[in-house]
């Protein structure tokens, strides 16, 4: 986004928020820096406040070598980015909002790396997801950035939830949620739950750190303003996954599974992204893909157990943070000053922007791995580690050389060509950036140079404690610029030569790559879109099937489930029973049984509502006749009355309804389905009734009534006595309720507007 609001003054709110943000960042950086000597000496200051004591969750924070390194990078680069962003968005109507989000993000990130409690870690993990959603979607008018923000949120957010489950399982296994206690207890590789925990944690780390095949969200996230990309997508957020892997290294690392998963995923990511990076013509996208490459390297080396690999990872982490954020900021300046980020249109900028060019050059040299910059040390360590971690290092070493050569070429395309080659064809006349914007990249690039010349300081105070924390055993680290002539140096020379060759031919390589990549059938991005589409069409399908709006369907689903559930309980629990001595059906009962059966079949066959109701009435009448035959005239009477009343009422309602037709009317297939359902339900209920009959009846109540009906109630008909004598008050209440309801119904019918005129019409 070429946000140039030159001339417009920054709002007081933006200024205040910038000042507050920078003050927070510097405060943290200062406080953390003062801890450096102690931590290097092996101390790990910690603080814990009970938060959810009922669940053993505490607001626990702990500063060890690893968290300290990350926290210093986060707060230090944070201050520079805030300063830069303030000038970058000067006069933008939402500049203050950006500064607020950036500060919130920084705090979440600090919380994440300092947390010593699994739940606290997760909470901050998700907070970085949420704040990065806000930051990526900052340019909310653009559909592209909204989409990118949502994509990043969904991918990293789902990883975060996987993390929660993984950490909870781990908490269950170890009996604590304190991360330092996990580390002290050592590996859980022998546990049954190890594979599950491993898979969940690695999923979280891979989504956050954009590992193949989840890498696609990161280039999309370049829709964010450039300071955001510099901060989130080079130095901090995307490293959170790597941090998690480093943090969990003593707990989950050291297994074959860990080694192979991380090595394969890391090297695949590094190689693939370095190829795609060269394809990009947008400088920012090229940087984004080269960030994915770097993340791949980091994951690859965290996968290994040996000290040199971890040292390489930690050193490269620092190197990358410096040069990549510097380069992002440089691209922001170029974009700001010229109005474009297209590699082909930029050239010869060093003349008009000397300071920026110097920063870019230093950072690019570090990225390409030239001595005496810190990048050179990082690269040498990587080669040394690659030669040591597998017994047959040929494949890995080749892969590393190729990926680094491609990175070399990208560095040249991004930071060398625009400044020192060709002529500008830019929309705007290039001009040097304001001082506040130059400060950040210059400082970061210079740091890469200074630490390259004096690596001992970094090695002793930052790398060594971090490596010790990751491996949970102290280890001496001695960073040196010059290691003598050895295999890694030879590989470096090969890298540089290959890189130069690729750079020289990069226009042609780019064209070939563009064709090759677009021919690929499945990329992560397309898979993401496809899975969202699949979710939506699955939802639509489900809605069509389950939610047609027709009550018939809803009841159908219910009747499908109920008999199945009840039937399965009866079958599984041995509830099926057959009466021991079934009483024979008398001859005169058979016609009634047939009548009832006919009445049950009729509603399925007929197309008339009235006929259905009448047939059901027939069933009721038949049943009451059966009651009569088996000696229960009172029950039969009640049943007959209720049946008659029901048929009459329903018939009255049905006469007012439109004809039974259209889509509500089932065809012959529908009728067969209804019949099957009815038979299933009927069979289940019959089985249930038989089961009830098979179990002994508790006779106490009926015996009591039978014994007391005559002496206490002076009646022989037990049911009558119960209704009018034993439960007389209940009966009175019932009658009252029915009367009141009848009055109310009458009043409603009278009140109905237009009731009288309709009666006249009928």
């Amino acid at each position, binding site marked *: 986004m070429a946000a140039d609001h030159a001339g417009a003054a920054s709002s007081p709110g933006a200024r205040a928020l910038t000042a507050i943000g920078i003050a927070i960042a510097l405060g943290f950086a200062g406080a953390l820096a003062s801890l450096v000597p102690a931590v290097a000496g092996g101390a790990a200051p910690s603080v814990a406040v*009970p*938060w*959810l*004591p*009922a*669940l053993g969750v505490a*607001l626990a924070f702990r500063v060890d070598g690893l968290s300290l390194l990350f926290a210093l990078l986060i707060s230090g680069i944070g201050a520079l980015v805030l300063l830069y962003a303030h000038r970058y968005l000067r006069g933008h109507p939402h500049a203050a909002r950006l500064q607020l989000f950036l500060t919130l993000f920084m705090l979440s990130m600090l919380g994440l790396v300092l947390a010593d409690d699994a*739940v606290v870690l*997760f*909470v901050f993990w*998700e*907070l970085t997801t*949420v704040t990065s959603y806000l930051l990526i*979607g900052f340019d*909310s*008018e653009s559909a592209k950035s*909204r989409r990118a923000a*949502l994509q990043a*949120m*969904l991918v990293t*957010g*789902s990883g975060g*939830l996987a993390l*929660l*489950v993984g950490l*909870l*399982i781990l908490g*269950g296994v170890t009996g604590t949620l304190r991360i330092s206690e996990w580390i002290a207890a050592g590996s859980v590789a022998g546990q049954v739950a190890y594979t*599950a925990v491993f898979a969940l944690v690695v999923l979280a780390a891979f989504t956050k750190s954009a590992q193949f095949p989840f890498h696609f969200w990161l280039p999309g996230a370049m829709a964010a303003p450039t300071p955001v990309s510099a901060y989130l997508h080079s130095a901090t957020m995307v490293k959170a996954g790597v941090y998690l892997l480093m943090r969990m290294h003593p707990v989950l690392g050291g297994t074959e599974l860990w080694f192979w998963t991380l090595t394969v995923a890391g090297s695949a990511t590094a190689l693939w992204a370095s190829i795609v990076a060269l394809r990009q013509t947008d400088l920012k996208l090229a940087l984004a893909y080269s960030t994915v490459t770097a993340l791949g390297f980091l994951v690859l080396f965290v996968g290994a157990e040996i000290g040199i690999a971890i040292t390489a990872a930690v050193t490269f982490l620092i190197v990358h943070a410096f040069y990549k954020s510097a380069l992002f900021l440089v691209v922001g300046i170029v974009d700001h000053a010229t109005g474009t980020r297209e590699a082909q249109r930029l050239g010869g900028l060093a003349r008009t922007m000397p300071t920026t060019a110097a920063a870019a050059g230093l950072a690019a040299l570090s990225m390409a791995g030239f001595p005496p910059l810190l990048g050179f040390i990082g690269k040498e360590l990587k080669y040394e580690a690659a030669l040591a971690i597998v017994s047959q290092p040929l494949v890995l070493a080749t892969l590393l050389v190729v990926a680094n050569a491609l990175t070399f070429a990208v560095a040249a395309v991004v930071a060398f060509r625009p400044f020192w080659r060709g002529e500008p064809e830019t929309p705007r006349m290039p001009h040097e950036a304001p001082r506040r914007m130059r400060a950040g990249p210059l400082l970061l690039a210079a740091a890469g140079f200074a630490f390259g010349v004096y690596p001992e300081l970094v090695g002793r105070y930052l790398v060594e404690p971090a490596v010790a924390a990751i491996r949970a055993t102290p280890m001496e680290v001695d960073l040196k610029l010059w290691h003598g002539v050895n295999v890694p140096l030879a590989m470096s020379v090969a890298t540089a030569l290959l890189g130069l060759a690729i750079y020289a031919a990069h226009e042609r390589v780019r064209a070939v790559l563009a064709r090759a990549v677009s021919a690929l059938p499945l990329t992560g991005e397309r898979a993401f879109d496809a899975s*969202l589409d699949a*979710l*939506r069409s*699955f*939802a*639509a399908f*489900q*809605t069509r099937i*389950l*939610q047609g*709006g027709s*009550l018939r*369907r*809803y*009841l159908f*689903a*219910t009747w499908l*489930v*109920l008999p199945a*559930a*009840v039937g399965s*309980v*009866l079958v599984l*629990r*041995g*509830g099926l029973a057959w009466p021991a001595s079934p009483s024979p059906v008398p001859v005169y009962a058979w016609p009634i049984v047939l009548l009832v059966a006919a009445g049950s079949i009729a509603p399925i066959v007929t197309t008339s509502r009235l006929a259905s109701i009448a047939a059901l009435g027939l069933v009721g009448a038949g049943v009451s006749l059966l009651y009569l035959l088996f000696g229960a005239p009172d029950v039969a009477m009640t049943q007959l009355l209720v049946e008659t009343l029901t048929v009459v009422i329903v018939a009255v309602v049905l006469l007012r309804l439109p004809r039974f037709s259209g889509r509500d009317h089932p065809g012959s297939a529908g009728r067969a389905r209804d019949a099957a359902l009815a038979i299933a339900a009927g069979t289940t209920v019959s089985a*249930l009734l038989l*089961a*009830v009959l098979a*179990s002994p009846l*508790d006779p106490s109540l009926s015996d009591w009534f039978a014994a007391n009906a005559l002496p206490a109630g002076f009646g022989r008909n037990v049911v009558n006595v119960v209704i009018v004598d034993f439960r007389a008050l209940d009966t009175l209440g019932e009658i009252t309720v029915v009367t009141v309801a009848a009055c109310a119904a009458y009043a409603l019918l009278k009140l109905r507007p237009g009731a009288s005129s309709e009666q006249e019409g009928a």
Partner: protein
Amino acid sequence: MNAPQLDMAAIAPLAFAAFGALFVLLGEVWLTRRRTNEHFINAALSVLSISFLGLSVYCAGAAFSDGTTRVFDPANPMLSLDRFAAYSIALIGIASLLICFASISYLPQVGINHGEYYALLLLSTAGMFLLVGATDLMALFLGLELMSIPLYVMAGFDRRNLRSNESAFKYFLVGSFASAILLYGIALVYGVTGSLGFDAIRAGFPPGNPIGIVGLGLLVVGFAFKVASAPFHQWAPDVYEGAPTSVTAYMAITVKVAAFAALLRLLTQAFGPVTASLSDLFWVLAALTIVVGNVMAVIQTNLKRLLAYSSIAHAGYLLIGFATGTVEGYGAVLFYLLVYVFTNLGAFAVLMALAQGGRDCDTLDDLAGLARQRPGLAALLTLFALSLAGIPGTAGFVAKFFVFESAVASGQTVLAIIGVLGSVVSFYYYLRLPVQMYMSEAATETPRRHAATGELLVLAVCAVVVLFLGFFPSHAPGVLGAVRALEWARSSVAMLY
């Protein structure tokens, strides 16, 4: 015959709600005779209902802090006011009371300004109070019906609206169906135990008797209808969509609390020894409900339908707690209900505050450009959406955390993972609300009304609770933190054993 020794304090909340309903009915007649203006009548009746509900909540609160169990008729225990009932009654009462507040301006806006509304609401609330305090299957059934029948009428309250009519009719049919199933279950349980009282059932329930298990299963199915758990959920979206928003809020919130609380009591007090055998049933119900609710919410464009599916999904998370069958799981359920009430009520209150000129705000498009016109409402709806999604920092996260944690602790890890995956899907549709409000512009700009005092009050209460429970889960003195609320919930559940 001696007069029974009745403890009137045990039915105080119920009595206040029921008498309140009668007073409101009489009050409406009395006020209408005097031909004062309609808005005044509506407001007066609302205040009357709020006062009665306030008394109920006060009684429940007192009973809760008192902690003793009061049985209405000790000789024939059918209804009691204990810690558990007091917790549930307070929750239901507060939710109903807040809905009355929000209704003062909502009802005139959509043109259904009739006094019966409050009477029906109070009657239904009385039914819920009865339901959660019932210790006898008959009292339970009475409570369920007293809760449901006024609701059928309320769903069709906007009687000139065909959708509202359809809603009422469907709700009535499905509701009666559910009652019938429940009654069948009661009959079977009575058949095997010979009693209806919870204590007697607990003592006499023959373990392993298939008929008893079928009866218990049918009882659970009856409740599954009421809480809209899959596969008995289909009515909910249609009914929620058609009913007026305030009624939808009432149905989605209080009914769910009452039905879940009653089910919880039933499963612990009456069926405690055999509940473990239902674990699989709840597992299936929970998993199905989470999947169906979350997946189908994805394509909704109607806000009320969206919230209906969301409430189905939340029923699924709650059922996870039931599948654990542990005190921790049930405690997590009660806490979840607390959070559920305030989060949903907040979301619905925003929708109610956006209704105007006889129209409900009920499609996603109606939210477009809200952030510019009413930034406060947009921010609040975002907060509630985030809490529904369970983003850390909101109460929704803490609630989900407790439930998932209890599931993992009791070995139901797969169910917890299903729940988490469901939450991932839910991010997608909850985020559409802020995206719509902040990132798109309305096609035609109609000026929006200002939210009324009652609505603002409800929103403020809900926002404070959601933030406090999310941000201050600690024991800070004087602060209502999640820990204290969870302790309340746990002590309420523990009392049932």
